[in-house]
C-alpha cells in the first residue's frame, strides 16, 4: 500500500495521520510534510502511526529528523503507536527512549499539555 498523509490541528497541536508504508520510496513525502509544517511554525507535532503498515530505518530517520527540527524551536514530536510490529523497530534501535510513544492521539495531547 502506498503512503497517505493528512494533518489537522487539535488543541494547538498539529496531528499528522500516516497510513500505509513508510520506506525508502515513500519516506521523502513524510519528510517534506514535516519540513512544511515546521516552516509554518508548527512546533508541537503528534504523528499518528496507528494505520502504518510498514516502517523501516528510512522512516525512522525521517522521524528523528523531524524531532530534531522541532526541538530546535523548543517543540516536540510525539508518536501514537500500539502495533507491536512497528514498535519492535523502535525497540531494536533504542528509539523508544527518544520519542514519547502513546496509545492514542488524546493521550499524546494530554501528555504534551501536562508537560507545559
Amino acid at each position, binding site marked *: 500500500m502506498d503512503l497517505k498523509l493528512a494533518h489537522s490541528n487539535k488543541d494547538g497541536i498539529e496531528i499528522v495521520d500516516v497510513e500505509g508504508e513508510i*520506506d525508502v520510496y515513500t519516506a521523502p513525502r513524510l519528510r517534506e510534510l514535516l519540513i512544511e509544517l515546521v516552516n509554518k511554525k508548527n512546533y508541537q507535532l503528534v504523528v499518528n502511526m496507528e494505520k502504518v503498515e510498514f516502517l523501516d530505518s528510512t522512516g525512522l530517520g525521517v522521524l*528523528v529528523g523531524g524531532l*530534531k527540527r522541532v526541538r530546535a524551536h523548543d517543540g516536540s514530536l510525539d508518536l501514537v503507536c500500539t502495533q507491536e510490529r512497528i514498535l519492535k523497530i523502535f525497540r*531494536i534501535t533504542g528509539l523508544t527512549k527518544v520519542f514519547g510513544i502513546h496509545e492514542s492521539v488524546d493521550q499524546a495531547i494530554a501528555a504534551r499539555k501536562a508537560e507545559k
Partner: protein
Amino acid sequence: MATVEVTFTPLPVHVRTARLVATAVARRSGVAESLLDEVRLAVGEACSRAVEAHLRHCPGQPIRVALTDDAEQFEVVVTDAVPDAEHGMPVGTVAANGSTAVPSAVPAGFGGGSVVIDGEVPLRLPDGVGLAVIAGLADDVRVAPAGSGTSVTMSWKRRTA
C-alpha cells in the same frame, strides 16, 4: 540453487516489490507467520541499503535477491555490485542472536557517515542502523564480498511447533 531469484533495477520503488516477493516465498516455504514481519523488514533494509549504494556508485547495475529454503533454515541473500573500493566494508558474521558485536565500520548504504543531520531532516539514520536492524531481526547475518560487490546473507532457522 536458490528457490527464487529476483533481479531489480536500483530504484527505491522496487524495494517494496522485493519485500513482497520475500514475504511470499517465506510464507510458501513454511516460515512461521510470527517471523514473516521480520523477514519483510530485514529484506527491505538490505535492499534499501543496496539501492542507496547503487544509486551513488553504479546506477546501471541491477541488485540481486536470492531466496532459498531447506530443511533447516530460510535464507535470503541480497547482492549488490558496488566495487569494494567504494565500500570500505567489513565482512563477517554480525550479531547473530546478539552473540557477537556489530562491526564498527559498515558497508556503503548502511549509513556510513554520509548523513548530516544539522539543519536538515535526514533520509536515513547514521552509523549502521540498517545493519543493526537486520541483525536484530535475523537469526544470523553475514556480510561478505561477492563478485565485484557485497552480499548480505540473512537466515532464519526452522522453528518446531
